[in-house]
């Protein structure tokens, strides 16, 4: 699977209008793990007094990276949709810095994929973390 599925995942992301609007990019994808990033943009700011990105942008990046991790998992044969997503915001992302989300699909059952993810700016400390449940289509036993 791996290379072929990684390629499918890249094409899959390229076809998502919202991922393009946010200029999201897949940095790495392999067997249930995905790393995706997006550039800082003044249009995505949540508080013009500070220039910090809005949580919604981080949510969109985390959700996309998590969905990509599910799609790339060896046991998943089709697409996916988010059932539930919880996001914890640890701190504001530093203005001007690129945001990177690392997602891991750590468990797949017949119907549900469990995923966790962490978002970073260019610093060491995480900006946000997420946990979610996603639908599974055509699971391999």
């Amino acid at each position, binding site marked *: 699977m791996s290379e072929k599925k990684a390629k499918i995942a890249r094409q899959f992301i390229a*076809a*998502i*209008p*919202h*991922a*393009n*609007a946010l200029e999201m990019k897949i940095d790495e994808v392999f067997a249930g793990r995905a790393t995706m990033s997006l550039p800082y943009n*003044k*249009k*995505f*700011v*949540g*508080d*013009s*007094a500070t220039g910090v*990105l*809005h*949580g*919604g*942008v981080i*949510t*969109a*990046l*985390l*959700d*996309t990276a998590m*969905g990509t991790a599910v799609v790339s998992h060896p046991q998943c044969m089709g*697409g996916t*949709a*988010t*059932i*539930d*997503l*919880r*996001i*914890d*915001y640890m701190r*504001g992302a530093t203005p001007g810095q690129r945001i990177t989300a690392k997602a891991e699909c750590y468990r797949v059952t017949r119907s549900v994929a469990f995923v966790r993810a962490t978002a970073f700016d260019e610093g060491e400390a995480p900006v946000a973390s997420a946990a979610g449940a996603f639908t599974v289509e055509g699971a391999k036993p």
Partner: protein
Amino acid sequence: MKKPESVQVIKQRRDAALAQIAEDVPYIQFIGATFERRGDELTAILPYSNHLVGNPMLPALHGGVVGAFLEIAAQIELAWQIHWPQFEAGATGPKAIPKTIDFTIDYLRSGLPRDAYARAVVNRSGRRYASVHVEAWQDNRSKLFAQATGHFLMPPPHE
């Protein structure tokens, strides 16, 4: 007894205050969300647009967009309630926006390619923290397509 203010004066002041809050969040303009006001009740509106799509095959709204829309609706409702007394006292200028601590989104149905609406309820608003619940629907108010609960950090008083 003081004569009540004219309806135009009140409307103009409240609409300007709401516009000011939304203006301080550039991301609201990016996703194209707007707010409708009836007295102090707010409804967030997300007009459908191609750049909000997450699944072009269906098509369906991006899960991240749905989450972001709910977060905006919750955050602006809270900011609106926090600053309402100041607005009513005639204060103008930028106001502090509460920061999100955590946000949990429950995706009930896929977001259809049409406008979405959301209303938030502040269940508790303390000195430091607030808990806000928000519901979103499209065609039928009784058929929610997503709901969420989030905690927010209250801005310092008089900011």
